[in-house]
């Protein structure tokens, strides 16, 4: 049961004199702080933080945690996010002191095991991508996109090409155009066909001597593999542009098809999706990128290099774009990725993709009768259903359905994305769910679409809060706690 008192904000629970931590006495002879530093630099009081005991803090956060749904507790079919099971062995191994306890500026002879692991990971990701070189530095998928576009810009500059336009399909994640803008490119949107694939006519009309990069998510955000990819890559390359593959949906094609083989010049991975790194309530992730040989000189420095039996960080990369992050990167996430890949091996990775696609198709076959799936009866790892008919007939929206699912113990699918489907519910089961779970989810949906509209408008009914007022949040902008006035 929810403990209201413990769930109250920490600041409201603060009581003068409470301590959770006692620091040791100073064991060196020292003068007072005021004589060690200029007074003008010093704070005149201790930091303005709450005073609490250890049990206060633990009870507070344990109570907060019970207000979250999570992959460990619930089916979490959040489309595009690949919320698969997070293996516990990876958590335990990544926490080993010999990995988690390394300082980023240690000398290379004291981190040979870590560098060996990271070097092997570079090679494995290159093989999965079908591309020549890998940088592990980017800290997230969007960061990887931006890094790859920096690489593209450096390559174009270095080879004397004045190309400044990035083409992006209308179904793409918002990160694509935002990353392109941060890399100094202009963006142009390419239309999708009614079938949900790239409109080749529109692409042809927009490709020209200004085209720097075409960014494509394949499988795309509708859960479809764009079978025109060979032709698309040829068109882009013929116009002198580069093909970027947004690897958000790699879970569907692991060991089945490689981006480098179907024409991509560069791509990013989302290890927190595809390779089961936990999502952590929204990070940390990582965003390694893989590129074709001609782009390799521009990758961020350092890369891990092997010289004989010795591993080193290679900073000697004169054409490199430089750094996009301090230190090595989100190494802890990369260690989990390595563990995941070593657990699966080549057969296992292929089976991941096969079962992710099987689960999505099975769920689609069970869902389509109650919620139409506008883009066909087959999909890859996810599909997008539409509540448009439900809305027209009964006034029930995709959001109503999503909220009601919470009452049945399921996390909601992604709603209202991609933008090209009305009343979208984007559903991605992943391979780590079994048939029985998919069946009960489908049954819940069938029940929900038949429920009283009023009941659905007022859902969820079982959570601690219901439909927070987002307009009020945005208008008031209360972004921190302030003490109630007396």
């Amino acid at each position, binding site marked *: 049961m929810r403990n209201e008192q413990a769930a109250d*904000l920490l600041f409201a629970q603060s009581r003068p004199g409470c*301590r959770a931590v006692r*620091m040791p006495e100073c064991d*060196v002879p*020292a003068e007072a*702080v005021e004589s*060690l530093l200029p007074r*003008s630099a*010093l*704070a005149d009081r*201790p930091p303005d933080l*709450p005073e609490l005991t250890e049990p206060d803090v633990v009870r507070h*956060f344990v109570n907060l945690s019970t*207000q*979250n749904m*999570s992959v460990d*507790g619930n089916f979490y079919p959040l489309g595009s996010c690949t919320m698969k099971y997070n293996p516990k*062995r990876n958590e335990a191994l990544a926490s*080993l002191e*010999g*990995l988690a306890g*390394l300082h*980023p*500026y240690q*000398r290379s002879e004291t*981190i*040979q*095991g870590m560098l060996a692991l990271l070097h092997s990971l570079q090679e494995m990701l290159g*093989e999965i991508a079908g591309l020549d070189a890998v940088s592990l530095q980017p*800290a997230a998928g*969007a960061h990887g996109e*931006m890094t790859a576009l920096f690489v593209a810009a450096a390559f174009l500059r270095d080879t004397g090409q004045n190309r400044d336009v990035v083409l992006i399909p209308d179904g793409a994640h*918002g*990160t694509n155009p*935002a990353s392109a803008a*941060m890399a100094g490119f202009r963006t142009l949107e390419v239309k999708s066909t009614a079938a949900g694939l790239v409109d080749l006519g529109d692409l042809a009309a927009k490709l020209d001597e200004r085209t720097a990069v075409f960014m494509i998510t394949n499988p795309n955000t509708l859960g479809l593999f764009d079978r025109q990819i*060979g032709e698309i890559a040829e068109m882009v390359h013929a116009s002198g542009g580069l093909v970027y593959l947004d690897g958000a949906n790699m879970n569907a094609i692991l060991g089945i098809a490689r981006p480098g083989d179907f024409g991509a010049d560069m791509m990013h991975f989302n290890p927190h999706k595809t390779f089961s790194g*936990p*999502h952590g*309530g*929204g*990070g*940390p992730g990582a965003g390694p990128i893989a590129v074709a040989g001609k782009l390799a000189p521009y990758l961020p420095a350092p890369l891990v290099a092997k010289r004989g039996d010795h591993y080193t960080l290679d900073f000697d990369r004169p054409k490199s774009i430089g*750094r996009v992050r*301090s*230190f090595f990167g989100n*190494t802890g996430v990369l260690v989990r990725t390595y563990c995941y890949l070593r*657990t699966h*091996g*080549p057969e296992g990775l292929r089976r991941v993709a096969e079962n992710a696609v*099987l689960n999505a198709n099975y769920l689609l076959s*069970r869902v389509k009768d109650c919620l139409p799936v506008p883009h066909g009866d087959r999909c890859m790892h996810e599909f997008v259903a539409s509540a448009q008919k439900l809305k027209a007939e009964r006034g029930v929206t995709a959001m109503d359905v999503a909220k009601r699912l919470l009452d049945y113990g399921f996390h909601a699918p992604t709603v209202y*994305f991609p933008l090209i489907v009305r009343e979208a519910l984007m559903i991605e089961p992943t391979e780590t769910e079994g048939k029985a779970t998919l069946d009960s989810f489908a049954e819940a949906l069938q029940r929900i679409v038949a429920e009283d509209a009023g009941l659905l408008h007022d859902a969820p009914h079982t*959570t601690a*809060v219901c439909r*927070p007022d*987002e307009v009020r*949040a945005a208008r008031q902008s209360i*972004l921190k*706690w302030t003490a109630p006035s007396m």
Partner: protein
Amino acid sequence: MPYIPNTDDDRRAMLEAIGAESIDELFEMVPREFRLDRLLDLPAALGELELQDHIRQLADRNTAASAATCFLGGGSYDHFIPSIVDFVAARSEFYTSYTPYQAEASQGTLTALFEYQTMITRLTGMDVSNASLYDGAGAAAEAVLMAIGATGRSKRVVTAASVHPEYRQVLATYLANLDTQMHIVGTPGGALAPEELDAAVDEQTACVLVQHPNFFGCLEEVEALAAAAHAKGALLIVAFDPLSLGVLKRPGDYGADIAVAEGQALGCPLSYGGPYLGILACREKFVRRMPGRLAGQTVDRRGRRCWVLTLQTREQHIRREKATSNICTNQGLMALRATVYLAAMGPHGLRSAAELCLKKARYAADRWTAGGLLEAAFPAPTFKEFVLRAPRGSVDELLDAAAGERIMAGSPLECWYPELADCVLVAVTEKRTKAEIDRMAELIRSVLG
């Protein structure tokens, strides 16, 4: 496979329901010519027992900082982490959930982010904090982009050689494709001279990025630097060390417009450089220029107080190419760690830790320079880090000898500052003991004496 629950019978039944002959048929959308006709060339699968052995062997080839005496710093520090930080961060409900888009299913994460934002604003004296970015360097670069937008001055930004070299490298990469010049003011004295900053800032300068305490550990004359920046209408961005705020004045109190930090010191393991978190806080008037997520307070239909992600129109999923940044995730779990850390340390714990850092660092600096074999490279007052100058050509010898004694004695500065080829950056945290500092003093005497 260990994480795939379906049996062969399940798969048969599912294929039948789909109306497909085989799983292969489901991949019909992928043209044959692009299907891999072989297995990936990857090492064979390992069971958990084998994986444990393999990873432990790799880990055993490393020397953890805890298995040595660590005087390494430069933005990542061997600070004390209370046990409850790991305990809370290991709760499944926190670490296996995702971005709190469905507020009803994520009040735990949203409340914690709101508490994080509150703690950061109180710690820094700034008006608003976002819910975290990737790391300190990225936060500094994002702050510069914010300042360019806020001032409408896109031609010039000014920073100092005393700012972490990797932060400057990241900033240079972010600016390389934009029409913005990055001017770096030299700091031969270890800290930025306000009159030199004044000369470098003009009416076209968007902002000044300084670090305080700076990369060399020295305090900057931040009030004078703020005045120099503001006199020309430029914003002051300060990269601070969160732990230093146990004793030092807050960025909001000396005129910072945007305050950024590497948050690793707040309860994140060293982890060979990441994951950490980037802290970014600013004055109220810049809130709509902020990158990244923000949790905001509201009420639900029944008037109950609760939290949601708010001001999302700044972000990429709505504003796309016009977004304040392309950032999508924050570092949610690391922000949670920082929140638990600050809750556990409290005002007095944080103050004690900061005082211990300061006092032990001062003791170490005095002790190691006492015999005249090493000297302090810069005269400015320092917090927990400082730069030592060794006799010409003896840096490697000293660090090698220390490594032999399992002492990670410091970072040589030559790779970033050729003019400081004989210098070493040293950090002393609250975890270092008098015995460890004295042992290093002995080593200095025996190697250089």
